[in-house]
């Protein structure tokens, strides 16, 4: 066959048609731009979320690593570095502290080996200058530390006189004065008072890498999404000793999968919305022009020529729409959302919320093309395959049904109902896009509610304020919280309840206890962070001499906890009322809590455990009556691996000769009561030995994160809502225009404008009710599943009533008002003219 050169003529023809139908094509350009915009924003939000989380980790740690091993030996470091999948393992040892300005804040000095400094510290800094200290009197400090020392403009080589003390347990190096030479400084994402010194200085301090809480081996992995099994294997390989555990997040992979699922959901929803919008517009355009296509076919245009003719027009819309959408999306990602956050938080230039990368633009462009192509593909094929007669006869509003039984009354509502369903495709697209936004809003509102600072804090804290006698760990006899103080706290205005928690160290005898606890201890050894060899070693020490030389403590240590009635009620509520209150308060038994709340204590029920209370010679015993599985322990000081025993206050006083209060859990009359919080803070101002943590203080810290989530979630919903409502408005406009003559005919036979307005409003309301109903039926389970998937804080599922009622009200109002407004706008002019059209 001879090739016919018809590309030019097709292009010219398409150009004329494109210019002739400018309004419709402009809508297409806008729809593509909106789709590109939305994809760009969603993608950048995803990346920004990842960046925010990463930065948050860097901010809290100041170092880049995946897992860490405390107090590592040289052998363990060697084995870790040789282990498959370990990228870098750098050692850092905290060896000295420096007094800050007015002796208020202390600067911690670390020694980092070459790997730690180069591979793990440097990438975690915003910036750094200078070199790592080489000589004993050289130092490198964080900008925060320098500011603490009153140095705002640091210069390499400057001399800084510091008073420092060694962190070695038995060192005489206290209040030493040294003039250091500053070899460099660094800026961290977080604000830490720290600095680095040379190996020579570290050796001088006498601190060892195996000293408790001083040495830490930071391990960076090839695959940061490690599993618990991998960490267990690593622990077995390097041979954990004593109480050593690898610091890791056993739920990392699950959390990652959940987060990815959430982002995929949002992306899919965005792509579907874009698809519906593009499909809708192209469908309308084709429906309008189909008779012309029939004419083209009649005069000899082939199917593939018809496709080319349409593709030219789609191509021009993409060329105009996609770059504008991508540009607008980039501008929003870089400017609008961070600005919004700045406005809401009242602090301009608040950290970058939305990250951006040029590769995102490429991905967004590709996805936009895919959405446009999938939106047009089906209709292109349909138009290409249409015969001229089919095209001429095409009438979109005729329903295929031939007859319908008489209805008793043809009311306005019934006519509206028929109109809604007269073009099923149009109905499906409009309802689907409305459902989409309602479902996204439902899901986003549930996730936001679930992650709101108040929900998270209410879930995580069973108190409004906690006063902790933290010095008990070092001094088991330290009575920081007195009965008088507890009374004083209870008397503060706005405080409803004060729950007292007593605790004391106890020592279990191996012979008496091991067999009783065998099943429990076997479960402990199965924990991912535990090593079986390590467990065996600890059990041997417990069996033979109890004193663990490596830990500097006894094995077989546990804790006896005494609680008052108010605290019991909270525990029992958490346990679903399974504890017998009367029996507990009579001191008939104990509730046993497993190690890290991860090990079941059911095997101990009915068993009597004998122990010796710290500082007391005589042996005591309690019988386990209940397991504390699934309930949060009332105390916070560690129990070692043996279970914690919780008894009533009276029983505790019988067993422990000098009862010491570990903590007070305070409940306000109204949660987050600022006045009560303030009064309590003031009361404890002179008790520096006690640690006060309040829900309200944490709320203020968490509020920024909540705000970020709210701004991001609301922006996303707003963008999707604009797209959806444009889509709906467009559909309605087309529906009204295609019925213009019919509406005029109705008026000619006596339907008033008011009745037509009512019919339009009824049509919109039907859309709203159907979309609302479907969204509610599908959206609530979807929001439940999504919220469950991203529920990091285990907050209970809660559908926020007010925002969702508001959403349905807005949906209803919008869906009802838009058709009326469009009808009034499009159906202007003399009735006679409308009848002629």
């Amino acid at each position, binding site marked *: 066959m001879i090739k016919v050169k018809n590309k030019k003529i097709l292009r010219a023809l398409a150009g004329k048609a494109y210019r002739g139908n400018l309004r419709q094509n402009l809508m297409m350009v806008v729809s593509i731009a909106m789709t590109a915009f939305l994809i760009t924003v969603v993608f950048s939000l995803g990346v920004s979320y990842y960046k925010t989380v990463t930065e948050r980790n860097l901010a809290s740690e100041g170092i880049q690593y995946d897992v860490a091993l405390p107090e590592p030996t040289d052998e363990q470091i060697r084995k870790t570095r040789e282990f498959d999948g370990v990228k870098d393992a750098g050692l850092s040892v905290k060896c000295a502290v420096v007094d800050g300005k007015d002796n208020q804040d202390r600067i911690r000095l670390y020694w980092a080996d070459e790997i730690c400094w180069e591979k793990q510290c440097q990438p975690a800094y915003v910036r750094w200058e200078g070199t790592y200290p080489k000589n004993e009197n050289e130092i490198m400090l964080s900008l925060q530390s320098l500011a603490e020392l009153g140095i705002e403009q640091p210069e390499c080589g400057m001399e800084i006189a510091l008073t420092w003390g060694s962190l070695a347990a038995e060192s005489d190096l206290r209040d030493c004065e040294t003039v250091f030479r500053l070899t460099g400084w660094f800026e961290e994402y977080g604000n830490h008072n720290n600095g680095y010194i040379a190996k020579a200085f570290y050796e001088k301090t006498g601190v060892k890498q195996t000293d408790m809480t001083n040495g830490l081996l930071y391990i960076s992995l090839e695959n940061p999404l490690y599993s618990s099994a991998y960490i267990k294997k690593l622990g077995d390989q390097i041979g954990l000793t004593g109480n050593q555990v690898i610091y890791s997040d056993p739920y990392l992979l699950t959390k990652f999968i959940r987060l990815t699922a959430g982002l995929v959901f949002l992306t899919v929803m965005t792509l579907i919305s874009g698809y519906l919008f593009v499909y809708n517009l192209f469908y309308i355009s084709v429906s309008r022009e189909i008779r012309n296509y029939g004419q083209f076919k009649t005069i000899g245009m082939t199917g593939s020529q018809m496709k080319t003719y349409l593709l030219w027009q789609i191509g021009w819309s993409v060329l105009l729409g996609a770059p504008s959408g991508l540009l607008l999306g980039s501008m929003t990602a870089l400017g609008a959302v961070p600005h919004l956050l700045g406005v809401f938080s009242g602090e301009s230039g608040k950290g970058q919320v939305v990250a951006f990368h040029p590769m995102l633009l490429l991905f967004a462009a590709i996805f936009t093309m895919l959405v446009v192509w999938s939106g047009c593909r089906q209709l292109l094929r349909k138009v290409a395959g249409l015969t001229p007669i089919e095209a001429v006869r095409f009438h979109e509003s005729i329903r295929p*049904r031939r007859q319908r039984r*008489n209805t008793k009354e043809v009311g306005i509502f019934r006519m509206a109902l028929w109109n809604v369903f*007269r073009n099923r495709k149009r109905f499906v697209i409009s309802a689907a896009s409305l459902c989409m936004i309602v479902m996204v809003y439902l899901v986003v509102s549930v996730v936001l509610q679930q992650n709101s600072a108040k929900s998270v804090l209410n879930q995580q804290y069973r108190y409004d304020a906690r006063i902790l006698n933290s010095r008990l760990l070092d001094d088991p006899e330290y009575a920081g919280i007195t009965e008088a103080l507890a009374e004083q706290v209870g008397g503060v205005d706005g405080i409803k309840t004060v729950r007292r928690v007593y605790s004391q160290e106890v020592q279990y005898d191996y012979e008496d206890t091991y067999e009783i606890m065998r099943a429990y201890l076997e479960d402990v050894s199965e924990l991912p962070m535990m090593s079986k060899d390590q467990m065996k070693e600890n059990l041997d020490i417990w069996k033979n001499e109890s004193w663990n030389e490596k830990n500097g403590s006894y094995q077989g240590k546990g804790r006896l906890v005494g609680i008052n009635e108010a605290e019991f009620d909270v525990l029992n509520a958490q346990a679903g009322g399974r504890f017998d209150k009367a029996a507990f308060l009579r001191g008939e038994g104990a509730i046993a809590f497993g190690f890290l709340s991860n090990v079941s204590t059911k095997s101990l029920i009915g068993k009597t455990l004998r122990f010796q209370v710290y500082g007391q010679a005589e042996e005591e015993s309690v019988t386990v009556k209940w397991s504390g599985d699934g309930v949060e322990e009332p105390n916070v000081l560690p129990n070692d691996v043996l279970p914690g025993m919780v008894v009533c206050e009276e029983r505790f006083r019988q067993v422990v000769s000098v009862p010491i209060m570990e903590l007070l859990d305070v409940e306000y009359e109204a949660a987050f009561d600022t006045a009560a919080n303030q009064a309590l803070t003031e009361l404890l101002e002179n008790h520096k030995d006690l640690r006060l943590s309040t829900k309200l203080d944490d709320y203020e810290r968490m509020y920024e994160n909540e705000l970020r989530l709210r701004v991001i979630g609301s922006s996303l919903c707003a963008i999707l809502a604009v797209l959806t409502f444009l889509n709906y408005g467009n559909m309605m406009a087309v529906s009204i225009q295609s019925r213009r003559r*019919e509406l005029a*005919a*109705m*008026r000619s*036979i*006596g339907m008033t404008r008011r009745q037509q307005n009512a019919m339009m409003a009824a049509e919109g309301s039907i859309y709203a009710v159907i979309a609302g109903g479907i969204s509610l039926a599908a959206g609530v389970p979807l929001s439940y599943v999504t919220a469950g998937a991203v529920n990091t804080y285990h907050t209970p599922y809660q559908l926020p009533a007010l925002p969702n009622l508001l959403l349905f009200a807005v949906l209803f109002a919008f869906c009802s008002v838009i058709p009326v407004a469009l009808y009034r706008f499009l159906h202007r002019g003399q*009735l006679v003219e409308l009848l002629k059209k």
Partner: protein
Amino acid sequence: MEILSVRNLKKYYGAGDTLVRALDGVDLSVEQGEFVAVVGSSGNGKSTLLHMLGGLDVPTSGSVCVAGHELSRLSENELAIFRRRKIGFVFQDYNLLPLLNVYENIVLPMQLDGKKPDREFVEELLKRLGLAEKQESLPNCLSGGQQQRVAIARALAAKPAILLADEPTGNLDSRTSQEVLGLLKATSECYSQTIVMITHNQEIAQLAGRIIRIEDGKVYE
């Protein structure tokens, strides 16, 4: 009894050189039960006159009084209500509502008025117009003649003061046209229904009791 009276009715379009006098001082009076045909060639103002009589368009000046109601004094909404109570329309292209079946199309004006349709009368109309078997059919399943008969039934169902027919046979073949016109004439006689029919066809006009000619916006008897 005079059911329709038109006094010095004018309808001008445009201004200056482009001024078109569609109706230029029309005076007309129609008695109860008359079947009047308005004839004239295209562009002479026939349809404009009909639209003015039905309150579908607003005159430049003059008055139209139907069944004692001066149309120029009615608001848009009042006009709509007036139309569904007092005027029946039969259009050239039927203007049936595609979503409603035959029966529903016929009773719609009454239901819009909040009235219960006179079922017996509607049944009688359907029988008389040969639509008894088609009352559950949708308009797109009917022939042109059947659709026009439905339009006539709809126009008559509310027992209007006047029935206005705009080229009712314009889209029909000659045999169907005769059939439709026969029905119009028969219903006019049977129900003493006043009918004003627009046509450009002299032959069709002969079926009416009275013929009015319209030329350059003026009427001649």
